[in-house]
């Protein structure tokens, strides 16, 4: 509850900060302070300090899984702010508002990771989406940003409509007439057609939100058109939030009906892996390549939804942490660049060795090379599928896709280290490269000591 209230309050504070603070750098500093406070209160809530006694009538339910994800999401946002706060403030004329909208999205994420009724799921997903429509279009003079925002808005609202119809069907199918997710499917060994239709519609809509294939087509266009720091936020923290909502819904409400929807999720994961990885190979721009790679990574994360066992829950947190750290780092470098093509990276190792080193570690982690967080995250996902004893074909397919992904990630490394080129001039401060190196070290630490993160799932004083 701490995070939900504090993030909303911080959003309001940031909204009015533009009146009192005239300099972009002071607004950015205030935002960094705010996100540190938000992270601190979430960690305190995990340790048993509740600042607000709000009776939610059981509509929100806080457990270690949701709270730990909140910590990861806020830490990811903190990394984004430390690296790119100036770029966020420089998107347009209203720096305070961009940070305010990001805090409102974080409020939505805190709700979506702790919902206990379909009402709160809907509210959470919408609080995430509506500020993002604005953030996507925040570069008002840029036509690409305008179009991305309109496209995101129309498809997002459309998928919300699908989700609502699904919720209405589930409500009709529940015998108690309630929206509480643990009462939806009680005692239903075989699903009624109404329940099945509702489940299908909600799955479709959440697949839209996390951009799983075949509902991914909006993602590359929107990620490409949005201002780069916003893309970084959308592709990591927001996607993780929507995915946690997905896992919580299926884990708490429909786990008894597993046999009926499992094959559908398996096909979704396979399609996402194939389409994400194969299309990423053909991209000419690194920003677009990362957009497709984010689709491909959702394919791996869907393994957790497929199995829903202990390994899957641990793996989800680790996957989101490792993937977010690496992607935020890469987008932070991209945000400083004018040319987002592969050629833009030519000869970077000579000009900016620290940046090139950090970027290499991020790319290795995304490709899943051992000793990085990305490797263990993929390992957890595949192990959770192996544990079920079924879906061996999916495991083989995922290994094949991971091999493809090495090609397009290494293309960037090759450009940085082995190609001659007049690299573009980047305005990087010493602080920026310092934080980038810290982020790279975190990626490696996640790959060596994942239990530091995962053990937090089991240590809780609620």
């Amino acid at each position, binding site marked *: 509850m701490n995070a939900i209230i504090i993030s909303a309050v911080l959003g309001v504070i940031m909204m009015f900060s533009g009146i009192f603070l005239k300099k972009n750098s002071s607004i950015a500093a205030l935002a960094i302070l705010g996100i540190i406070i938000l992270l601190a209160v979430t960690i305190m809530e995990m340790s048993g300090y509740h600042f607000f006694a709000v009776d939610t009538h059981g509509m929100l339910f806080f457990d270690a899984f949701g709270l730990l994800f909140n910590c990861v999401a806020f830490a990811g946002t903190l990394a984004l702010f430390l690296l790119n706060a100036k770029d966020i403030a420089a998107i347009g004329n209203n720096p305070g508002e961009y940070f305010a909208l990001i805090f409102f999205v974080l409020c939505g994420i805190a709700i979506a990771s702790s919902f206990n009724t379909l*009402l709160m799921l*809907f*509210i959470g997903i*919408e609080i995430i989406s*509506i500020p993002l*429509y*604005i953030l996507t*279009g925040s570069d*008002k*003079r840029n*036509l*690409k940003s*305008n*179009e*991305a*925002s*309109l*496209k995101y*808005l*129309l498809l997002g*609202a*459309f998928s*919300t*409509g699908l989700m*609502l*119809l699904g*919720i*209405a*069907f589930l*409500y*009709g199918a529940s015998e*108690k*007439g*309630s*929206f509480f997710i643990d009462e939806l499917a009680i005692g239903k060994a075989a699903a009624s057609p109404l329940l099945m239709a509702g489940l299908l519609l909600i799955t479709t809509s959440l697949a839209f939100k996390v951009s799983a294939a075949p509902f991914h087509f909006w993602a590359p*266009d929107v990620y*490409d*058109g949005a201002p780069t720091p916003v893309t970084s936020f959308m592709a990591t923290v927001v996607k993780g939030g929507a995915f946690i909502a997905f896992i919580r819904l299926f884990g708490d409400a429909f786990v008894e009906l597993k046999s009926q929807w499992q094959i559908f999720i398996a096909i979704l994961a396979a399609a996402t892996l194939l389409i994400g990885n194969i299309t990423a190979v053909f991209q*000419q721009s690194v920003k677009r390549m990362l957009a497709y790679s984010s689709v491909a990574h959702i394919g791996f994360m869907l393994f957790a939804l497929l199995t829903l066992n202990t390994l899957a829950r641990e793996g989800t947190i680790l996957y989101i942490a490792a993937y977010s750290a690496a992607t935020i780092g890469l987008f932070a470098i991209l945000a400083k660049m004018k040319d987002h093509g592969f050629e833009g990276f030519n000869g970077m190792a000579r000009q900016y060795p620290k940046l090139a080193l950090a970027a290499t570690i991020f790319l290795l982690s995304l490709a899943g090379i051992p000793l990085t967080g990305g490797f263990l995250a993929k390992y957890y996902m595949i192990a959770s599928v192996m544990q079920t004893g079924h879906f061996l074909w999916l495991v083989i397919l995922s290994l094949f896709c991971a091999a493809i992904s090495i090609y397009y990630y290494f293309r960037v490394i090759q450009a940085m280290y082995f190609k001659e080129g007049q690299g573009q001039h980047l305005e990087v401060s010493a602080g920026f490269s310092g934080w980038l190196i810290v982020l790279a070290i975190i990626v490696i630490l996640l790959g060596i000591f994942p239990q530091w993160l995962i053990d937090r799932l089991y240590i809780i004083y609620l």
Partner: protein
Amino acid sequence: MPINYYIFLSVALFCIGVAGVLTRRNAIIVFMCIELMLNAVNLLLVAFSKMHHLALAATDPNAGINGQLFVFFIMVVAAAEVSVGLAIIAMLYRNTHSVDINFLNRLKH
């Protein structure tokens, strides 16, 4: 009246909305069709709410009221979405003097 009629009516309205979203090229009309989808859901929720009330009123006089509450939330969220959406469409119109969504293909290079 059996609940099936309400389900058919709502689903028909919803499908009209979906068809509109998929076929129309004017951003504002697409937006209206999305509103139609949301309102079809509202109708369905109210119908289910009444159904649950009739079935469970003997044990719980407030049974089914949560469905109607949900409708209010949908209305509020839809209003928020429309205000953001129309602002985005107005912004696009200011830059391109058109609200045609065929325009969206420019992002695919």
